[in-house]
């Protein structure tokens, strides 16, 4: 008990506590800060770039998570069927998740390059477009491009975890359902989905948390540009705190992420895991 508590204290509580504390000071790199109360947060609330980063983060998380869930579930259902080379295919599916993010981000950086993009090149050769697509140069295009890269990376995690969940569902439910004349959709809606919700809650909580705090992908692809349109809270926090030396302000941005993260955790906890039947009671 004691070593565990010590570990938690040193590696979790202390950094978290220090980070939160810094957010309430005007600490700079190389200089301890003075307690300034909520001043950092007041300033950040009025700062157009921070507001934009907050919007970007919420948008990025929402769109990416919805797609990751839909595609991940779809992929899991496909992989759950009897297909040849099942094990090999399942392993291959995990690849995007295994490749270090920085590496896959560089691959995407080439794919999205304004002069050397393979997509633009292929489409030009096919005669479908005439100029190269400016994937990362226009604010909305850049947002969707980074989201696409994030989805590509995140789907395997969702898919494989959901697949594990699917395999815990006993085939006898499906037999019973088909005897009752349930259509495939009804089987999914009334057997698969309800039994999968605890796993969905866990995997989507993790997925949302990881997306919300994403850093590497943005840092490699755009550094938050163009015109700060892809800056996320995490990248802005780093830019202000480390590159810019305003430790207090950067820490405040990071701290400002915490309420959002807690909300997500609570939502998934109460929204998805607390069905009465999951607690052994009758469904209402």
């Amino acid at each position: 008990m004691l070593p565990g508590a010590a570990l938690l204290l040193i590696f979790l509580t202390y950094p978290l506590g220090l980070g939160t504390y810094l957010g309430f000071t005007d600490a700079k790199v190389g200089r301890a800060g003075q307690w300034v109360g909520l001043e950092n947060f007041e300033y950040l609330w009025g700062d157009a770039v921070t507001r934009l980063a907050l919007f970007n983060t919420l948008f990025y998380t929402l769109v990416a998570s919805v797609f990751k869930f839909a595609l991940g579930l779809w992929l899991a259902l496909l992989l759950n069927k009897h297909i040849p080379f099942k094990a090999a295919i399942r392993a291959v599916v995990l690849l995007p998740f295994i490749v270090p993010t920085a590496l896959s981000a560089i691959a995407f950086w080439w794919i999205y390059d304004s002069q050397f993009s393979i997509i633009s090149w292929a489409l030009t050769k096919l005669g479908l477009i005439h100029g190269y697509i400016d994937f990362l140069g226009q604010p909305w295009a850049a947002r969707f491009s980074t989201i696409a890269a994030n989805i590509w990376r995140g789907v395997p995690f969702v898919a494989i975890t959901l697949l594990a969940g699917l395999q815990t569902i006993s085939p006898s439910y499906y037999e019973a359902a088909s005897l009752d004349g349930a259509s495939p959709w009804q089987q999914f809606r009334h057997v698969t989905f309800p039994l999968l919700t605890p796993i969905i809650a866990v995997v989507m909580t993790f997925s949302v948390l990881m997306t919300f705090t994403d850093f590497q992908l943005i840092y490699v692809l755009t550094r938050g540009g163009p015109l700060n349109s892809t800056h996320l809270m995490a990248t802005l926090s780093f830019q202000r705190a480390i590159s810019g030396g305003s430790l207090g302000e950067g820490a405040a941005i990071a701290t400002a992420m915490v309420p959002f993260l807690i909300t997500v955790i609570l939502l998934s906890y109460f929204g998805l895991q607390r069905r009465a039947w999951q607690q052994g009671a009758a469904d209402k």
Partner: protein
Amino acid sequence: MSDIKRRDFLKATAGVAAGTALGGGTALFAPAAEAQLKITPEKGAKLRVLRWKRFVQGDEDTWAANTKKFTQVTGVDVRIDAEGWEDVRPKAAVAANVGSGPDIIISTMEDAHQYPDKLVDVSDVANYLGNKYGGWYQAAKDYGMHDNKWVAIMMGAAGATLVGRESMIKGAGFDQFPRDMGGFLKLCQALKAKGTPPGFALGNATGDSNWTFWLLWAHGGKMVDAKNNVVINSPETVAALEYAKQLYDTFIPGTLSWLDPNNNKAFLDGQIALTNNGISVYYAAKTSTDPKLLELEKDIQHYPFPLGLDGKSRELNLVFPMMIFKYSKFPNAAKAYLAFMMEREQYVPWQEASIGYVCHPLAAYESSAFWTADPKKTPYRDCMKNMTNNGYAGTLGYASAAAQADFIIPNMVAEAASGSKTPKEAAERAQKRAERYYKL
């Protein structure tokens, strides 16, 4: 001189091993009569140096060879770690904060002004080098001195000039490269009309977005006045942004997303006729084995940035301060190392091996033959002499570092150039953002 072996050094300093007397030290590697720096490395000293990873191979090799020479002469072991240049700054910041790390960090920009009280006073080394080598350029003093004492020795600056394709510029009707802002815009418009556009980074590119400072300063705009009051929202800034808009219209598409490597790639692929860069593009072409690039190399030419409206040149380059941290157990060995590396015998061969990637901070080195032996290198010779520091017209410190790291000026130019904001709006926004940092 360089063949003095460790044993000789020990013999020479044996009598003063107690360290109270002033012995050996740098006098050993600077036999000239004017050498007066006497620093004895601590006994058993070992140094760890963190520097940015080379952009040109010759830099790394010769820096390592010079370091080896230092070890032979003094017996001081030196370990060099190299990191991507943008990662050095955060590491230096952490080292300053926690009070442990490499003895010497070769970082970027005004780091020494962010934690001057964590750094060893190197005034003796700086004064010695300045006296011996024709004095430090103004920019070296700006970045190296805090409150009248030296807290960093400047390694130099990765100078940036305009890198162009001579044939394309001639093809656009310009036998002479324009030196004025009006002529420069006309050249870019002509290049675009010929289908050989220019391209300058407008994304959050830490190094290559520095051209936006030149653009602002050339029109008389500036971030702050001499008292550090933010004055960027000015008619001069708006004029600069109007100019940027016209200039941007001539760029190759996609520059809003450009980070540091993009312009190099586009230039080496022959897609753009003009950009701003260090000498690394030329180096890449020159050392390539690809016949296409070797052909391109002949066509590469370097040009100084056009002069500002007041006829003065003001450019921003990436400077490299070498800092010794107070937590170091071997400050004297560290000082001796920095002095040794900056001596002509080491510095000039190193500079030459890196084909002038780093421009010297000491005036005497401008006479080095290699700057003129290849006329294509000559424009890089004066980069540090002509440069203005990024705190202009105020002082360097937290505020200037934060304002630059937050890309306030590049963002402002990008916003106005792309038309996402009017020049007036972009200047107002920059003013607001900068005021935050300068209110301290």
